[in-house]
């Protein structure tokens, strides 16, 4: 084993940040102004939504699970926020609580299915995605309801777009989320237990840890973060639309993996996943600046993920 002053996990996180910086540098070469402050903040703003979803995905992946219900939990959250707030500031708080609650409940249901009903995570969260999709479409009549066209309450739009100290509010929010999630994972009992379960659920159980309850909570958190991203996306774009959650499944998993979180669980952290979200978004922006068509982006996406996976090394568990 090589003598390195940094752990392999820390190196992966650094690699993810390095990739992000590199992409901005490349962008600056191919497109003057790419690395300007305004351009960077607008790219980071886009990365925020991926990053928030990735926070939830990160929690679940850390215990060796996966959340495929992201697209419709996010989409349903966006719709619920619009329809329950009716674009009025006075109803915004109520709508936000309701929406986050919906995400939390959907996540908990995933956790219950995985932990107590013994349904494989892939199947349970896939089914949940369908369940929420059906409910969202059915209850809104396929987005034809009167309230469906509602705009986000101005206060929510402002909480995304308003600029504080030159930086959009949503970015500040993401920064807070990064700090909180990193704090929770790194310094709290809950975080420690999460790593313990991801590392060796049997050993964690034999050390007296309530593995089931913790796992259910982690799925709940994933639902919560998807819902939060949905709320902010409505604030960002103004209205909810069908299919707005679809890209976030692939991107959240990709961000988590690029950020060095092991898909088998137990290793990695949210700092890395956040960097993954940034580099992914920066990559897209660079490719856009190069006038790369859609298909090219899709291909390069896949190639970059494969390259990083191979770079990070083999599955050390076996």
């Amino acid at each position: 084993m090589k003598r390195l002053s940094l752990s392999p996990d820390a190196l992966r996180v650094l690699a993810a940040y390095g990739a992000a910086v590199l992409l901005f540098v490349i962008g600056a070469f191919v497109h003057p102004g790419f690395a300007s402050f305004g351009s960077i903040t607008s790219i980071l703003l886009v990365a925020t939504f991926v990053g928030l979803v990735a926070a939830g995905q990160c929690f679940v992946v850390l215990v060796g699970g996966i959340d495929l219900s992201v697209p419709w939990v996010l989409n349903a959250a966006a719709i619920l926020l619009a329809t329950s707030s009716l674009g009025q500031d006075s109803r915004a708080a109520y709508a936000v609580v309701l929406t986050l609650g919906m995400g939390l409940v959907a996540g908990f249901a995933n956790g219950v299915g995985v932990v107590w009903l013994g349904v494989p995570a892939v199947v349970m969260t896939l089914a949940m995605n369908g369940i929420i999709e059906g409910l969202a479409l059915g209850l809104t009549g396929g987005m034809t309801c009167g309230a469906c066209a509602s705009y986000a309450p101005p206060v929510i739009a402002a909480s995304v777009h308003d600029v504080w100290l030159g930086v959009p509010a949503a970015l500040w929010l993401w920064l807070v989320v990064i700090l909180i999630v990193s704090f929770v994972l790194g310094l709290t009992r809950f975080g420690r237990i999460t790593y313990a379960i991801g590392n060796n659920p049997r050993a964690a159980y034999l050390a007296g840890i309530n593995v089931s309850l913790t796992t259910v909570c982690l799925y709940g958190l994933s639902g919560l973060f998807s819902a939060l991203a949905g709320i902010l996306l409505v604030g960002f774009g103004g209205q909810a639309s069908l299919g707005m959650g679809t890209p976030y499944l692939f991107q959240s998993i990709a961000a988590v993996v690029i950020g060095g979180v092991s898909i088998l669980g137990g290793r990695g952290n949210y700092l890395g996943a956040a960097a993954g979200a940034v580099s992914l978004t920066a990559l897209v922006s660079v490719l856009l600046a190069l006038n790369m068509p859609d298909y090219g982006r899709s291909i390069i996406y896949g190639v970059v993920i494969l390259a990083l996976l191979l770079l990070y090394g083999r599955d050390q568990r076996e």
Partner: protein
Amino acid sequence: MPPEAAEPPRGRTRRPVLAHVVGQNIGLILAVAILSASIVIFAAMFVVQQDRLPGSFEITSTVNNTMPLALAAIGQTIVVLTRGIDLSVGGVIDLTNALAAIFLTGGVWHMAVVSVLIVLAGGVAGLINGLIVGFGRLQPIVVTLATLSILQGLAIRVLPTPGGSIPAGYTAFLVNTNAPTALCFLALAALGWMGFRRSRLGVDVFAIGNDEQAAIALGVKALRTKIIAYTIGGMLYAVAGLFLAASATGGDATTGDDYTLTSIVAVVLGGVNLFGGRGSAVGAICGAFITTMIVNILFFAHINPLYQSFYEGLFLVIAVVFGALIGRLVRGGR
């Protein structure tokens, strides 16, 4: 393996052969039972509303609609049996569907050669998955997620906008709209599965899904087996892409996207264990038909089609939970 208390020999009491067949194929049997039940329910609803039994038209359209999913599910089954999972299904179908729309023209021989080449292209995609999963020792779920993205991109590159046209003769050959002749292809696939199950390769696939380390100790070439499994999977998705092109009589580079997830659903409904080593492609075919039948039933039950995925998702969870429960009961708690 922890030592367990020594059990006394169970003596000569043996379960009848039938009990073993039932116990060891409970997933398949449940899939067949659910499929039969759904067909009966569908037929009953049909009779009530249309005053006649479902006829050739209904059967043909059901079979033709299900063919691509059934084929994709067989491929997914083989990968899942190795304790893997393949998310690139949708990408392979997209790409092969697009290729078909562009290159399938001309005479019979030309179409035959093009078809074979397209299936080989699917095989190459699978081979790449297998090589990366095998040699890279990486998790299949992330590897195939990445190749999914690549294949989707390639598909759009090949066919930027939906279009192209599939010669009518080709469509008639694969998906005869007048009679469920596509069932012949399914029978062929089932036959192929039975051969696979009885081949050295089949045994190896099941063995590594059971316990990779033990299989290696028994002399199974795990790496090679995995690579072949992903390759066969890719070829089957390609065939699914051809069927999809034939029934749509044109190509669309995004039409395959749904198949990644629906193939997993079909496999799960078909009683294939997602953790490898147990299951049957025949079950997966049943699983594919169950998903189609559910859509049919929901339609005849006048359920608002917007709620369709809600019922499908609910049904999936219930089927998996009860399937596991019944399996445990049949095996007597072992």
